[in-house]
């Protein structure tokens, strides 16, 4: 399936008028299109969006008083159905549900198979979508279709939904759509727009499917007076709301405030409870859970809402964590919403609905925190990474949406590299897999295990090699694989090393420890085409001689006259006659000039940072110094949010980056 087809245009006829007494006609007309109607109704002392049957279910005569940390349903004894303040439910519940099945694994004669679950998207009609919520639907649709592979589940659900928007006549004290440019006037994306007057509704069809429903109402055109009052009432609302959040330059101001002491102050109050992110209509982050039978054969994975406020969200294998402190997590959320969202998707991530303010259990008001951490006319400090919204680096293109593909491969060779690392050769005839580029990775699915991202360590005509270190349960069973074993691969994913960019130039390759694995395809490519490159210098460091990977290949490299190869180990016993020390020593006193050379670096963060400093001293330019980063890459296509690093999704925009692209994001703690 490709991006949503443009619906046929509505006829160009004047708005109709639906008398209040006839409102049920709308529900009838919607159901006549085979849709279940979701709309506002009162449950558990709040207005929530649930399945409704008709007018009687609407919160007529009710409104809500909202303030930081409080929401109180109150009678206003009016006749209107849509004068309630926005409640806790966001429409994403129906377009991006809190929990969906992802894959099913079943035993089979040739071993367990992994198959994606095709989405079940019931046709729905959303009644009572506000301007800010419509903007949120647009923003989330952009998010869920961005990147190399959009989300098939979201696409199916969004396409199956018909949106009946309602223009606001009242605003809550927590509303600030006027500042975020999302309301109160209803923008694009609705199929039908209602404006509520005391005597009824001015109805505009804005799409073909919407027109079908409006025609079915069989009501007259609205009078000029009615359309006039509808326009006036929303204009008046805009006046009363004003512009509570000065957004001019906000993305840059937030960037410059990355080390602001106020983050720590907020962390004193913030409970990191995740409420703000889960009520937010645009927050999209998810995690994948695994369930299985007692034998680990029949298994399922499902995808649930997650939040950058939960510790687990920043956790990677080995239990390291990118955002250990609550201050890190709040900073991530706020800067993502109002700043890096621009870099990623070309818009703000906030629509000003105010849910995060009202439903924060300790009343933290994002408007106040923004003013405290990034006040208007704040001295624009240094930008920590070189992209400047809103016209910053182009947001990822909209993806062709197709379900995740899992390709069954068979282990044809297992080579033990070290006591905890093996190289698996996985045979496949899948063209997409075999077209993998150096630096790309695959997700390796096994029943009853999470699917870790694994770099490709060699690309062969009929197979891929993966070099895997045992760091956790999932890699444990991978490193225990035997020839004949089967694994389902998803990929290839990620941005490859820019090898072509290095043609005609000197090449410096620096590998640390397991980091040699993602660089091995670079070596293959460069050596295969040796004459097309200048001087090739390869520096390899390992913890001990016993930790060296691909030992025969290292020996062969050492024997070549057309490359400079040196290696060094951190610690060695008496039986090691090579260099001892750190990898940077290998070129510390070297006399070659690095200017114009291209560097490819992979290893643990500390090693890469030391190497980048060392190479810079040799004159290598930041935009030709390439590293590959480690993050908690879960979905592999920029949809789950786990691997964010400042403006980037490591899985989608990387994992290969130039040091120039990363800027301070390469060294800022807790980002």
């Amino acid at each position, binding site marked *: 399936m490709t991006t949503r087809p443009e619906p046929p245009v509505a006829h160009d006829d004047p708005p109709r008028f639906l008398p209040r007494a006839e409102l049920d006609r709308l529900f009838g007309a919607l159901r006549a299109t085979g849709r279940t109607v979701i709309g506002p109704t009162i449950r558990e002392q709040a207005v929530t969006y649930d399945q409704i049957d008709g007018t009687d279910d609407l919160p007529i005569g009710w409104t809500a008083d909202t303030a930081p940390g409080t929401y109180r*349903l109150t009678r206003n004894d009016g006749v209107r159905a849509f004068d309630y303040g926005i409640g806790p439910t966001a429409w994403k519940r129906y377009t991006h549900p809190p929990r969906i099945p992802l894959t099913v694994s079943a035993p089979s004669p040739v071993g367990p198979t992994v198959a994606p679950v095709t989405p079940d998207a019931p046709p729905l009609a959303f009644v009572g979508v506000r301007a800010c919520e419509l903007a949120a639907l647009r923003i989330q649709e952009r998010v869920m279709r961005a990147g190399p592979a959009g989300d098939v589940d979201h696409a199916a659900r969004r396409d199956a939904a018909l949106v009946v928007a309602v223009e606001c006549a009242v605003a809550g004290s927590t509303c600030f759509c006027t500042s975020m440019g999302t309301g109160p006037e209803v923008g694009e994306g609705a199929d039908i727009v209602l404006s509520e007057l005391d005597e009824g509704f001015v109805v505009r069809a804005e799409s073909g499917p919407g027109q079908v429903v409006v025609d079915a109402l069989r009501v007259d055109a609205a009078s000029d007076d009615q359309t006039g009052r509808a326009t006036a009432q929303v204009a008046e609302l805009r006046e009363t709301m004003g512009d509570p959040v000065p957004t001019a330059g906000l993305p840059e101001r937030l960037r410059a405030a990355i080390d602001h002491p106020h983050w720590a102050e907020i962390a004193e*109050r913030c409970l990191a409870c995740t409420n703000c992110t889960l009520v937010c209509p645009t927050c999209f982050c998810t995690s994948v859970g695994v369930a*299985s039978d*007692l034998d680990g054969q029949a298994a399922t994975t499902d995808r649930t809402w997650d939040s950058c406020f939960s510790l687990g969200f920043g956790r990677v294998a080995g239990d390291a964590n990118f955002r250990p402190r609550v201050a890190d997590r709040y900073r991530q959320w706020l800067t993502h919403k109002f700043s890096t969202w621009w870099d990623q998707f070309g818009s703000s991530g906030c629509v000003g609905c105010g849910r995060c303010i009202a439903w924060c259990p300790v009343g933290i008001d994002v408007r106040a925190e923004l003013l405290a951490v990034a006040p208007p006319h704040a001295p624009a400090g240094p930008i920590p990474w070189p992209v400047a919204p809103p016209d910053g680096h182009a947001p990822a293109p909209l993806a062709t949406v197709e379900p995740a593909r899992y390709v069954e491969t068979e282990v044809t060779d297992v080579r033990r590299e070290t006591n905890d690392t093996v190289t698996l050769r996985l045979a496949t005839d899948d063209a997409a897999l075999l077209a993998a580029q150096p630096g790309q990775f695959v997700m390796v699915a096994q029943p009853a295990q*999470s699917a870790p991202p694994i770099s490709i360590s060699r690309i062969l005509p009929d197979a891929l090699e993966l070099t895997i270190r045992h760091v956790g349960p999932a890699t444990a069973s991978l490193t225990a694989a035997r020839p004949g074993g089967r694994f389902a691969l998803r990929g290839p994913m990620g941005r490859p090393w820019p090898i072509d960019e290095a043609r005609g130039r000197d090449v410096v390759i620096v590998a640390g420890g397991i980091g040699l694995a993602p660089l091995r395809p670079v070596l293959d490519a460069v050596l295969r085409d040796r004459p097309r490159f200048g001087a090739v210098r390869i520096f390899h460091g390992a913890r001990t001689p016993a930790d060296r990977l691909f030992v025969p290949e290292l020996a062969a490299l050492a024997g070549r006259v057309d490359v400079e190869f040196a290696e060094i180990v951190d610690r060695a016993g008496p039986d090691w006659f090579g260099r001892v020390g750190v990898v940077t020593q290998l070129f510390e006193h070297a006399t070659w000039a690095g200017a114009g050379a291209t560097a490819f670096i992979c290893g643990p963060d500390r090693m890469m940072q030391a190497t980048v400093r060392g190479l810079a001293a040799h004159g290598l330019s930041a935009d030709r110094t390439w590293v590959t980063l480690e993050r908690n890459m879960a979905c592999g296509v920029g949809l789950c949010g786990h691997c964010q690093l400042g403006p980037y999704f490591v899985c989608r925009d990387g994992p290969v980056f130039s040091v120039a692209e990363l800027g301070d994001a390469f060294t800022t703690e807790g980002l």
Partner: protein
Amino acid sequence: MTLAAATSGRTAVPARPRIAIVKFASCDGCQLTLLDLEDELLAIAERIDLVEFAEATSQRSSGPYDVLFVEGSVSTPEQAEEIVRLRAASTLLVTIGACATSGGIQALRNWADHDLVRAAVYPDPTMVDSLATATPIADHVAVDAEIRGCPISPAQLREFVTALLVGRRPGLPDEAVCAECKRRNIVCVAVARGITCLGPVTRTGCGALCPAYGRGCYGCFGPRESANGPGLARWLERDLPPADVARAFALFNAWSPPFRTVIDEAGGPPGPIDGRPTPEASDAHH
């Protein structure tokens, strides 16, 4: 040895582990949860050797155990000795429930004068042999994993046992109850109704049970990671006297540090007892 190690294939938890379930001061509810897995109990029993589980079988074993599930808190001198013996006999020690993990409801006595408490229940306290404190297992020996809750959740126990048998990390999230509340579309009782709710500082696992039943979370799964007890207490004290805030925290996980801090700052749990921990109580924790 940690659970991660145990489930990472690095540690020898055999395909058919020898499992023991023992209890200290507790209500039996957590070990009964295993028997409450009515649909899986027999299948699980076929895949493990349940060598010690006095509640359910007359077969006994004094060890060694591959996995030892411990219910209850340490409340008598004998128990303080027994847990050391059991730890030595076990590869993996897993605490089940609030008593074993944080002391349980009986840990409220840790704030009190032990003799007063004893005298209140027993005419002749000298006949009763108990420690001044009820303390978590981790205060006495190393603990490899915790299954939280008062009582533990059958689903989490099932997940833990399955992960153990399959060799993967069990999915026992340490996020706040709020996350599950929102996923379930339960309206926040704190925000919409002003009900005192410990959800934001309490670990999920119950499925947001109390809010789903129209009341505030009472913290029976204990503090979540980075639980900001004081932060929540400061907010609650806008409407409640500190004593009533402490009241909310002073239940089954009162002795867990994030909750205890709040209780101590309010001068101790409800009841006419000396608000400061007894020397033994403070020793017991540090």
